[in-house]
C-alpha cells in the first residue's frame, strides 16, 4: 500500500506539472492583416446607396483579376463611365421589375455581384461576349466604356445583356417548362450559332441566332428580346418572318415565357415589357 500511495502522489504532482507547463503560452497579438477600409470616393458612396444598401448588390468596377477571365484581353472601365451605366441598370432593369413585381422582387432574386468591364470581350472566333452570369450570383457586363447613353441601339444592347442574364437567374430559381420548349424547334440548335444570319435563324423559329445554342439561351433570348423591344418592334420582327410555322413557334415560345412569369412570379410579362420600354425612353430622354 505504501508503494501505491507513493505512486498516487507522484501521479498527482506530474499531472499538476503538465497543466502548469501550459500556463505560459504566447497569447495572439493584434492581427497583421489589413482590415482598414479604403477611402470611398463619391462614386463608391453612390453605388453603396443605390445598389448595396437597398438591394445587397455589390458592384465591382476597379480591376480585380480574380473576378475576370485572365486569358482574355479586357480592361476596367473609365471611372466616368461607371455611373451612367449603372443608372441605366437601375432605371430599366431594377425599377421595371420593382414596379411590376413588387418592392422586394429584386431584393429577393438578384445577382449579388456586378462586375463591370470597360473593354469588349472579343472571342477569337469574332463573336463578342456581352455578359456572363455565373452561378446566378455574379453578372459580368462588358463594353462599359463603349456605351453611349444617348444611343438607343447601345442602350438596348446593354440592357438586353442584363435582362438576358437576369432571366437565367430567374430560371435557376424556378425552372421553366423545358419539356414543352424542347419540343418546339428541336432540330435548330447548333453550337456554331455565330455563323448563322439572324434572318435565317428567325425563319427556323428562333428570335436570334444566339438562341440556337440551347433551350436555356433560347428562353433567355426570347424573353429578353421581347423585354427590350416595343410592342410595334416585336410585331415587326414577327411580320418579317415568311415561314408561318417558324412564326408560330416563336409565338408558342412567347406564350411559354408569359406563362412562366405568371406562374412562377405572378408577373404580367407584357406590363413588365411596357414598363421597361417606358423607362428606356426616360433614360434616352435625359
Amino acid at each position, binding site marked *: 500500500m505504501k*508503494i*501505491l500511495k507513493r*505512486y*498516487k502522489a*507522484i*501521479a498527482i504532482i*506530474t*499531472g499538476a*506539472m*503538465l497543466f502548469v*507547463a501550459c500556463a505560459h503560452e504566447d497569447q495572439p497579438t493584434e492581427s*497583421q*492583416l*489589413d482590415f482598414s477600409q*479604403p*477611402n470611398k470616393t463619391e462614386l463608391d458612396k453612390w453605388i453603396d446607396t443605390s445598389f448595396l444598401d437597398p438591394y445587397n448588390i455589390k458592384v465591382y*468596377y*476597379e*480591376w*480585380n*483579376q480574380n473576378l475576370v477571365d*485572365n*486569358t*482574355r*484581353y*479586357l*480592361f*476596367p*472601365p*473609365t*471611372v466616368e*463611365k461607371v455611373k451612367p451605366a449603372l443608372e441605366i441598370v437601375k432605371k430599366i432593369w431594377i425599377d421595371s421589375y420593382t414596379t411590376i413585381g413588387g418592392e422586394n422582387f429584386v431584393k429577393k432574386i438578384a445577382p449579388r455581384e456586378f462586375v463591370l468591364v*470597360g*473593354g*469588349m*470581350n*472579343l*472571342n*477569337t472566333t*469574332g463573336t*463578342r461576349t456581352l455578359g456572363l452570369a455565373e452561378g446566378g450570383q455574379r453578372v459580368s457586363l462588358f463594353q462599359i*466604356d463603349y456605351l453611349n447613353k444617348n444611343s438607343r441601339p447601345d442602350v438596348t444592347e446593354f440592357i438586353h445583356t442584363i435582362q438576358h442574364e437576369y432571366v437565367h437567374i430567374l430560371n435557376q430559381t424556378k425552372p421553366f417548362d423545358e419539356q414543352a420548349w424542347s419540343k418546339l424547334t428541336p432540330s435548330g440548335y447548333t453550337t456554331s450559332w455565330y455563323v448563322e444570319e439572324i434572318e435565317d435563324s428567325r425563319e427556323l423559329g428562333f428570335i436570334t441566332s444566339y438562341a440556337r445554342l440551347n433551350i436555356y439561351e433560347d428562353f433567355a433570348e426570347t424573353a429578353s428580346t421581347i423585354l427590350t423591344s416595343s410592342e410595334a418592334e416585336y410585331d415587326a420582327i414577327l411580320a418579317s418572318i415568311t415561314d408561318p410555322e417558324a412564326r408560330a413557334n416563336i409565338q408558342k415560345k412567347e406564350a411559354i415565357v408569359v406563362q412562366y412569369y405568371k406562374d412562377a412570379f405572378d408577373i404580367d410579362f407584357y406590363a413588365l415589357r411596357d414598363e421597361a420600354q417606358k423607362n428606356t425612353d426616360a433614360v434616352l430622354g435625359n
Partner: protein
Amino acid sequence: MKLKYIYKYLIVAFVAVLQCACTSTEADSKFDQTPIERLNIKEKELNDLLLSSPEGWKVVYYTDSTQLGGWTHLFKFLPDGKVDMASDFDGDTSTYRSQYDIQLGSSVGVVFTTANRIHLLSQSDNYPTAALRGKGHLGDFQFFYYGQENGDIIFKTNRNVQELRFVKAKAQDWTDLPKNTPIIEGITGGPTSPLFRLLEINDGSALHLYDFDFNANARFGTATSLDPASNQIYNLALSFTPIGAIAKPALVVKGQKLSNFVYDSVSDKFIATGTGGVSATIKYTNVPPTLSDDYKILLPGKIYARFGYYVGDYVEDAPTNSQLFVNELTAINAALPEGVELTSIQVYLNHSLGNFIYYTFAGGPAIFHYINVEEDATGKKIILKHKSWNGNPTAAAPAFLANFDKHLVNNNGVYVKKESFKLGYTNTVYTFTSASSSFRMTTWQLN
C-alpha cells in the same frame, strides 16, 4: 497489485508526454517577420517607391518583341491611389488621371484599376494583326514587383511574365512625349507617302537591300533580303523617341548592335549608324522592291486583255488599294453633279477599238481615255501615253477625272503586278501602281 501497475504506467505516460512537450517542433525561422508582415512591408515599400519619384516613371513597354514594338508610357503616382498617365499609343499624348492599387496576386504588385492610356494595349477589339484578334496588343496592366536595380523598379507582367522596367522620369520626358508623334507619323506615312519601304544595310564594305514590310499599328516590321542568294530575314520591333526609333532587340550587323535609328525628316529616312561605315537605313520608295514581268501581257502585240475595278464590289475591300487611290476616287464623286456616280474603271489593252481606260458612271455616259502603251524594259513597267478623250485628240481631260487619271497616264509609268490572292471570285487579281506616286489600284482580270 493491479492498481499499482495502472499508476506505474500512468507515470510512464506522463513522463513521456513531458519529454515530448519539451521537444521543439518549430523549425528555425528564416526571417525575422511572419509572411504577412513581410508582405505588408513589401506593399508599403512598393507604394513608397512609386511615390518617391517627383516626376514619376517612364516605361517603354514592349509587350512581345517577336511580333509587336514598344509603347512609351509616363506614370506619376499620387498619394490618394490616383495616377496621372500619358502614352504615345496614338496622337493623344495628353495626361489623364485614373486609379491604381497595390495588390497581392502571385506576388505584390501594382495594378492600374480603372481605365487609362495603358489599357489601350489590352483592347481585345483593337488588334494590329489578324493573329491577335481578341488579344489586342497583348498588354498587361498588372505588374509584379521584383525589386530595384540602379534606381529602376523591376516588374514582371502578370500574364506573359516579362520583365518591365520603371525608369525615373524627368520633367522633360513629359514635355518630350508629344514629340514622338511626328516621328511615328514619319514611319507610318500619309496618303502620299511612297508605298514601299526598304531596309538598306551597309556592312562597311557592301550595301544589302531588304524589302521592309512594316505594320505601323503593330510597330513591327520584317525585312526580307532582296538578294536571291540570301534568305536573311530581320525582325524589327520599334519604339519611338523625339528623335527616332529604338529597335529591341538590336539589329546586329558585323557584330555591331544597331538599335538607335535617328529620323532625318528631310530625306524621310531612319538611320542607325555604327562604326567603320556600318549602318542601317529604313527608307521609302515608289519602286516596288521586287519587280516582275507581269506587265508584259499588256504590251502591244499581245492578245486582248481587260482589267476592272468595280465600286461596291469585293475589289473595293482589297488591302492593296492605296489610301491615295481611295482619296482620288472619293474626289471624283465629290466633283460629279448630284445623281452621277463613278461605277467602274476598266483598262482595255489590244482591243479592236485600241487601248483605252474606260470610266463608267451611274446617271451619266461612259468616258473613253484612249492611250498608247509603251514598254520600259529596264524599269519593268508600262508607260501609258495620252492619245485622246472620247476619240477627240484636242479635247481636254474632264476636270473631275484629271487628277485621278494622271496617276495612270504619265511619263513615269505604271508597275503591274499579278497578285497571289483572289477577291470574291476566281478572277486573277492585278494591281496597277503608279511609279511616281503612292497610287495603287486593284483590279480583276476580266477575260
